[in-house]
């Protein structure tokens, strides 16, 4: 009945294994030779790890939007990177106004909260509008159609915001309270990075709590499992879908301000790369899975930040850190080859593909 292993293993399986093995060897070899060279001190590794976690935290907040929407609509919302962008490119005006009045450095906490709130509201509104205008009319269309619409919506938003705010770079003012670093023993901890990591962890926990324990969160999970059965409970799927987009948009908007703390420049195109990375992270963790989005984002942040120095440098590649984006997308390709369901994604990948 069962075929022998010889019949089951195909040529492409063997090729995939060879590629996998080759990558493994290269990574291990690069890592060993980097460590042997002693080029980087323990302090600089600590630096890179913290940087990776901070980036991962931002990715996690963006990835939530992809993963929640995918869970409920089985659709990748490619306009989500613009949902992310819309918050910080708008909030920069508030930030500059606060800085000009001197309030920003007098009341840094209040100011950041106000900026984050504005960013959150803008991103949330954009997310809801995109759902209403671009996706809802296509609810019963073939799955490729909303995907194309998503890309269209993405371009539309980019150029709309460019029309509003111009194509230039808008620098965020620096916040004195977050400048500089804390010294712990021999290592330095940048204040912004520490704040970003802490905020991201707290927010991810909050989002997880909403999804797991609130009434709307539970209804969201019910709709994502079986929309028709959920309707039989009196749950209005359209309302829940709006809530999902709002939640994802809010997370992305706050994520945008955390991103700004790390890279304080806003422009209409700023969403593209972080959006793609967060999407990669969501797939890495297992799309449709909330803890997976967090885990995948942290792993991606760390790989992106540590990877170039850890295993590319040792191979003698010059300026390895310039390759961090390439590394992130190479990872996407390999997840799709070796584990399409992601780290925690076994269960979601099987349901009604």
């Amino acid at each position, binding site marked *: 009945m069962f075929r022998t292993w010889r019949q089951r293993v195909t040529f492409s399986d063997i090729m995939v294994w060879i590629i996998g093995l080759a990558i493994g060897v290269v990574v291990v070899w690069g890592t060993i030779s980097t460590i042997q060279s002693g080029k980087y001190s323990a302090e600089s590794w600590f630096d890179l790890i913290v940087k990776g976690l901070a980036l991962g935290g931002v990715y996690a907040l963006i990835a939530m939007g992809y993963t929640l929407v995918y869970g409920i609509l089985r659709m990748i919302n490619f306009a989500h990177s613009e949902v992310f962008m819309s918050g910080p490119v708008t909030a920069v005006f508030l930030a500059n106004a606060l800085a000009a009045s001197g309030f920003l450095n007098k009341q840094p906490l209040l100011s950041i909260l106000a900026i984050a709130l504005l960013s959150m509201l803008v991103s949330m509104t954009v997310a809801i509008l995109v759902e209403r205008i671009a996706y809802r009319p296509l609810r019963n269309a073939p799955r490729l159609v909303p995907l194309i619409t998503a890309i269209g919506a993405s371009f539309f938003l980019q150029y709309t915001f460019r029309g509003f705010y111009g194509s230039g770079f808008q620098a965020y003012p620096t916040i004195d309270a977050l400048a500089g670093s804390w010294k712990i023993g021999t290592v330095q901890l940048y204040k912004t990075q520490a704040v970003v990591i802490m905020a991201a962890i707290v927010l991810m926990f909050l989002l997880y709590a909403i999804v797991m324990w609130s009434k709307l969160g539970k209804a969201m*999970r*019910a709709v994502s*499992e079986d929309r028709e059965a959920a309707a*039989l409970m009196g749950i*209005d*799927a359209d309302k829940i879908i709006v809530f999902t987009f709002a939640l994802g948009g809010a997370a992305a908007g706050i994520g945008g301000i955390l991103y700004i703390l790390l890279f304080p420049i806003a422009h209409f195109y700023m969403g593209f790369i972080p959006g793609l990375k967060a999407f990669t992270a969501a797939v890495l963790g297992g799309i449709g899975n909330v803890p997976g989005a967090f885990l995948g984002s942290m792993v991606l942040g760390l790989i992106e930040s540590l990877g170039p120095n850890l295993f590319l440098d040792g191979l003698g590649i010059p300026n390895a850190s310039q390759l961090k984006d390439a590394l992130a997308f190479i990872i996407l390709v390999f997840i799709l080859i070796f584990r399409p369901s992601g780290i925690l994604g076994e269960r979601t990948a099987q349901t009604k593909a």
Partner: protein
Amino acid sequence: MPMLEVNNIHTYYGNIHALKGVSLKVEQGEIVSLIGGNGAGKTTTLRTISGALKPREGNIIFEGEDLGKRKPHQIVHKGIAMVPEGRRIFARMTVMENLEMGAYIRKDKKKIAEDLEWVFELLPRLKERRKQVGGTLSGGEQQMLATARALMTRPRLLLMDEPSMGLAPVLVEAIFDTIVRINKEGTTLLLVEQNALMALSVANRGYVLETGDIVMHDTGEALKKNEKVQKAYLGVE
């Protein structure tokens, strides 16, 4: 005035004419069974009443109100719940969460807690398993959960689609005992079943559906004694 009145409904799946003028009535407090072979349109009838499918012709009147334009989730608000075919419980959510979803449309926390006690008393197995994830329950337990979940919406009319499907004979009896109890405690039932003998035994009245049309209608007892019904659905030679 009957509680539910289905008047001459025609329902299509694409171009397939699935219901060709089905009419039936359910009076308050009754158990009405709808029997028929595979593909006769039993499930289609229930899905049309629950709003998942829209009839092209005819109308459905519940407690004097036309349900024609209502969406499925609005029909639940009117007081009709359904235990769907194949149970359709939320497999990744716990038993408790499934029941909470049943109570989704209700606001009164005290009444919900009371009803929870009531369904646990009705189906004590669920209380033991309340923290377990739905997908890990046995078939019989899933059927109990689907029933309990529908009851948590506090329906006046409960539609049940093939509650005995795929269950061991002992469990089938248990499910029908539960059905009779639910009815005695005040819920009107419209039941669709392949197990015609059980369905007609508990029913006040029954309808026989064949290729999208009602061909017979009588009391449960009379249908059980009817020769044609015996031959076609009860396996009596």
